[in-house]
């Protein structure tokens, strides 16, 4: 069995899913894990039995980790949060960038002290704050706020992802609502280290450049693509891209990471450095970019995959993209197993998984003669990748967004090159505007043009009859059946590919 990490990750995921739907005591899982590790040790010389016990270990680790994520410390703020709102005073550190909406700002804080019914408690855990005041909130700053503390309400139908579940995936169980007559004080304490402060100031400056030189809609789009802040994307853009199945362009993703790698490699090529040092520096740039965009799942996944690729080059080893993807999933889920139920995580990993496995098979279906012509070959690659991603995300999109987008393959073929141009011109605009502010209005024109062009092309695509079909609510069991079949097909393809590789070696 090749690619053991892929199988370990799949069993790790199975473990998390099992623990999510079946209630198992944590200590029982821990004892089973201990036994599985001992069994693996005894079967060290028998490859097949060792592999099976290793799979069992990863399955149990996934299940146990999920159970562990549900156990909250006794001093967690959730334990002091009532279902209906009560007056409370909270001292906390702001850990997320505030999102300013019409009449409120929303941000996440790390709770430190809570004053509730005349008792002052030392607490921990995250709290989402809805502030209905005009104050500008400083990230990493300490605040003392008075408001109503309560458990978040669920806003959507049972069985589907609702606001409460969404917050739980982010490890948030409490909400503080600060209304106009409540108290909010920002202390002068800033506990962030110099790196975080520097990064925060770069983000603020980038936002300032974007907001001051671009129109409202273009600024919203560029903020989403570069900073990962989707809160300011106009609804009309969001809806339009959703209907063509290209809403992923608004998320910072692997494409961005790829462009960053190319730019960084190009930049370091001007310096007389050893290629290993250059690759190490590019890895650092990737980590920096991941940090810059707020450790989003898609960027973290792409950063891990990119870093593994660069590391493989540095130590002269073969790069296996599927194993790198598995490592990415394993790391992200290890840090927060609830991410598995996050739609962003599911879309990101399913699309890349099917691009890596299904797309090459689709490409093989095209006639060899056409592939000799460079432009046709390029086009076929684009179709294969787009179709592969579409197949991989079809079930998730239908379940969460109640939409079926047959036009998605064509839309991606047209939109992705425009997205590439937008990102490239946006990076150029931000970097040069930061150095030479005079050039900003001129460089902003490119961004304006490409964002409008993207919208126009997308509008044209969705105007095609039957470009998208709105669906009723779909039961989860159909989605499981769909992905069950897809996984079987993927394993069949993997098996066939490895047999073909062996035959070609013979």
């Amino acid at each position: 069995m090749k690619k053991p990490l892929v199988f370990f990750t799949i069993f790790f995921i199975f473990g998390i899913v099992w623990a999510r739907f079946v209630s198992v005591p944590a200590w029982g899982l821990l004892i089973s894990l201990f036994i599985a590790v001992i069994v693996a040790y005894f079967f060290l010389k028998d490859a097949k039995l060792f592999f099976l016990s290793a799979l069992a270990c990863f399955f149990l680790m996934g299940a146990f980790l999920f159970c562990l994520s549900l156990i909250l410390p006794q001093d967690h703020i959730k334990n002091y949060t009532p279902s209906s709102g009560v007056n409370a005073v909270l001292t906390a550190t702001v850990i997320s960038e505030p999102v300013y909406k019409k009449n409120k700002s929303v941000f996440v804080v790390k709770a430190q002290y809570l004053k509730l019914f005349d008792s002052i408690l030392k607490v921990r855990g995250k709290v989402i704050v809805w502030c209905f005041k005009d104050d500008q909130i400083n990230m990493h700053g300490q605040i003392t706020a008075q408001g109503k503390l309560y458990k978040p309400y669920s806003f959507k139908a049972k069985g589907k992802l609702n606001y409460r579940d969404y917050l739980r995936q982010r490890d948030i169980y409490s909400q503080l609502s600060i209304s106009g007559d409540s108290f909010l004080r920002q202390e002068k304490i800033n506990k962030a280290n110099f790196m975080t402060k520097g990064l925060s100031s770069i983000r603020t400056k980038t936002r300032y450049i974007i907001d001051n030189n671009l129109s409202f809609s273009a600024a919203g789009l560029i903020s989403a693509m570069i900073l990962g802040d989707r809160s300011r994307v106009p609804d009309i853009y969001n809806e339009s891209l959703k209907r063509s199945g290209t809403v992923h362009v608004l998320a910072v993703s692997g494409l961005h990471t790829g462009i960053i790698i190319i730019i960084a490699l190009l930049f370091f090529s001007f310096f007389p450095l050893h290629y290993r040092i250059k690759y190490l520096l590019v890895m650092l740039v990737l980590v920096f970019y991941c940090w810059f965009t707020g450790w989003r799942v898609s960027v973290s996944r792409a950063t891990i995959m990119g870093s593994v690729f660069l590391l493989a080059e540095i130590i002269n080893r073969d790069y296996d993209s599927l194993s790198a993807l598995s490592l990415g999933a394993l790391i992200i889920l290890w840090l927060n197993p609830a991410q598995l139920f996050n739609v962003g995580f599911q879309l990101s990993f399913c699309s890349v998984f099917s691009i890596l496995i299904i797309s090459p098979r689709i490409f093989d279906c095209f006639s060899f003669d056409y592939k000799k012509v460079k432009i046709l070959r390029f086009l076929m690659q684009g179709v294969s990748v787009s179709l592969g991603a579409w197949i991989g995300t079809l079930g998730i999109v239908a379940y969460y967004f109640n939409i079926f987008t047959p036009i998605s393959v064509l839309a991606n073929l047209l939109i992705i090159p425009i997205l590439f141009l937008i990102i490239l011109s946006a990076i150029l605009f931000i970097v040069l505007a930061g150095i030479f502010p005079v050039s900003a209005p001129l460089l902003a024109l490119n961004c304006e043009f490409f964002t409008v062009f993207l919208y126009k092309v997308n509008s044209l695509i969705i105007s095609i009859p039957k470009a998208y079909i709105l669906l009723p609510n779909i039961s989860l069991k159909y989605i499981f059946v769909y992905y069950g079949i897809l996984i079987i097909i993927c394993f069949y393809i993997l098996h066939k590919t490895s047999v073909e590789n062996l035959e070609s070696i013979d």
Partner: protein
Amino acid sequence: MSELPVQKRKAILLVIALLSLALVLGWFKRVVGTSSDNMLNLDCQISQSLNSISNGEKKPSPISINIADVKALCLLSGIGEVKALRIIEYRQMHGKFNCLKELINVKGIGQKTFERIKNNISL
């Protein structure tokens, strides 16, 4: 897996063992490593900040300067750990406070501090 040599299998086992150990430690930290008795176990400055804000309609009960310990005294605005210790030291040397104003005799507590806290203290 059969392609993997024994050394790699050993490495995998080591990784599994280390990950399992990390899980055990994580579990131990979450379940055993926290104390439920966290009342008033807090930073003095932050407690002052919190205490200065009224929590809803209910007013906090005044702190008795003749009984309160360091942690309770720290809840008063402008009283840190050092001043709280001086109040207790004064109490031990001179006996109980007869009136609130006597607090000014404690080193470090001036008229300003007294004015600020006088509504939150009792004998």
